[in-house]
């Protein structure tokens, strides 16, 4: 029997039944996406009759230019990038700062403040949607309408993960820096942030996925078309072009590509991050 080099828990051969099952599930998971990609390159004549499943006969790349010219796809992508990037940066910075104060600094209310953040793990956007809709009226026509709640809801898990990580790190470097006369702000920037880098990347990935894909608040808080993010924008576009399936498919494909490319480049980090987020969830 051939043994595999990687960690093979049971060290036994896979039966044909299992292989068939795996292939079948893989097909079920991928086929709708394949089908979407295929109809994004066809015209209605092919989709509706001649060739609903196969490769396109006449490749309709025009569907893709249409979503950027007639539709606002470029703008939606840009909005998503702005909102997601700001959310990630602010979540990382604010959470790391709070983590440092909670784990390393000496003050009476440290445990209480940590627990307040942990309460956030049990909250859901449903519970704050209406109050925020009312409170945020003055900024509902800005990107902040989304960034504010996205950061607020990303911080509890971020702090939980970072606290666990910083607690496990030795204090020697910090002590040495203090002896060398570094002040605490500089120490945070030069020593703590780099030490936290692995967990920061985990939090960045989790925050990217949750804010890039967020739909409910984006639907409720953003009414002007020019501020819409991809999730809501693509949904509107599908409604507008509902009879032109090729254009719909192109919109859905483009909305999916950024995350798919990320996944192709970082699949190991992404799966590790999600597994880690769950353990600490």
């Amino acid at each position, binding site marked *: 029997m051939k043994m*595999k080099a990687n960690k093979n828990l049971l060290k036994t051969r896979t039966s044909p039944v299992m292989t068939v099952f795996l292939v079948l599930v893989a097909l079920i998971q991928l086929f709708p996406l394949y089908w979407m990609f295929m109809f994004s390159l066809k015209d209605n004549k092919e989709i509706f009759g001649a060739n609903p499943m196969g490769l396109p006969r006449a490749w309709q790349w025009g569907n893709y230019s249409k979503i950027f010219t007639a539709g606002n796809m470029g703008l939606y992508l840009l909005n998503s990038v702005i909102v997601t990037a700001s959310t990630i940066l602010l979540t990382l910075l604010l959470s790391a*700062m709070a983590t440092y104060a909670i784990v390393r*600094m000496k003050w009476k209310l440290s445990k209480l403040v940590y627990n307040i953040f942990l309460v956030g793990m049990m909250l859901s956007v449903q519970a704050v949607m209406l109050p925020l809709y009312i409170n945020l009226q003055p900024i509902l026509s800005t990107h902040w309408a989304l960034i504010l709640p996205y950061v607020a809801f990303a911080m509890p898990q971020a702090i939980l993960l970072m606290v666990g990580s910083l607690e496990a790190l030795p204090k020697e470097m910090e002590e040495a820096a203090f002896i060398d006369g570094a002040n605490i702000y500089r120490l945070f920037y030069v020593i703590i942030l780099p030490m936290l880098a692995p967990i920061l990347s985990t939090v960045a990935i989790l925050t990217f996925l949750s804010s890039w894909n967020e739909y409910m608040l984006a639907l409720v808080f953003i009414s002007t078309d020019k501020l819409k993010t991809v999730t809501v924008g693509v949904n509107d576009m599908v409604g507008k072009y509902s009879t032109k399936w090729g254009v719909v498919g192109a919109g859905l494909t483009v909305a999916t590509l950024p995350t798919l490319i990320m996944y192709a480049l970082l699949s190991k980090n992404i799966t590790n991050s999600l597994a880690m987020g769950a353990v600490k969830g």
Partner: protein
Amino acid sequence: MERALRDKKAILFFVLPALIWFVAIALLPVLQSVRYSLLKWDGITQGKYVGLANYTELLGDGLFWNALWHSLILAGASVFIQLPISMLLAMILVNGVKGETLYRNIFFVPVIISSSVIANLWMKVYHPSYGLLNTLLGNLGLTAWQHEWLGSTDSALIACFVPMVWQYIGYHMLLYYSSAKAISEDILEAARVDGANKRQMVFSIIIPQIVPMIKASVIFAIIGSLKSFDMIQILTKGGPVHASEVPSLMMYINIFTTRRYGYASAIAIFIIVECLVFTLLVQRVFGRWQND
């Protein structure tokens, strides 16, 4: 150093931005929701205090029970259909299959795509005349099975659930897979030396070792179901005639269509309390199990 770490100004500098942000945007609004839930209010005129009237109305509202029931069915489907499939996949992969990483990555792809894209894609899958599902059925000669999946009261709910279950199979698989991979080699080796077969390995060694992850995954599946919104809002808007309505969607409709802010807030509070209760319940059930 001691003094620097007790510096009040520095502590405030580090902790206040996150704390104020979190309290103002996430914590206080929950209390605001509680207050709204005691009002009869349309958001325009002055709200009127009505005590627990919204909650008593909620408990007597057949439409709410209907929506709640739907979310509970979804939770049940997630726990008893989705999770076993995920577990089976994880156990096969952990067993060491050729192409292990490839399969794992394929199963996981739908997880990272936004639910709004998934919902719109499945809308096309379900399209009565040109959708993937009816086309496939037609090709297989099963024209009698073709159906208006989203437009009929008898199938709308199931049709909404299928893509949700489909999307997250890979997520739960990953949770089981990664925690099984983290089991220490000593434990596995000991079992192998004892001559454990494949089935014994899975049921007596691996699954008991990953119970904490199973607990987490059951909680995620249930809470995700109780709060479900995106997919149904896009696919059916709760219709036809409330056939696929769920509590979050009912809350949304009460805010933006009928403008019953008090009633909508009561639903919001109900949802978070419900999620808390289910979390505690699952923890108790698993606590029993782990002690046995």
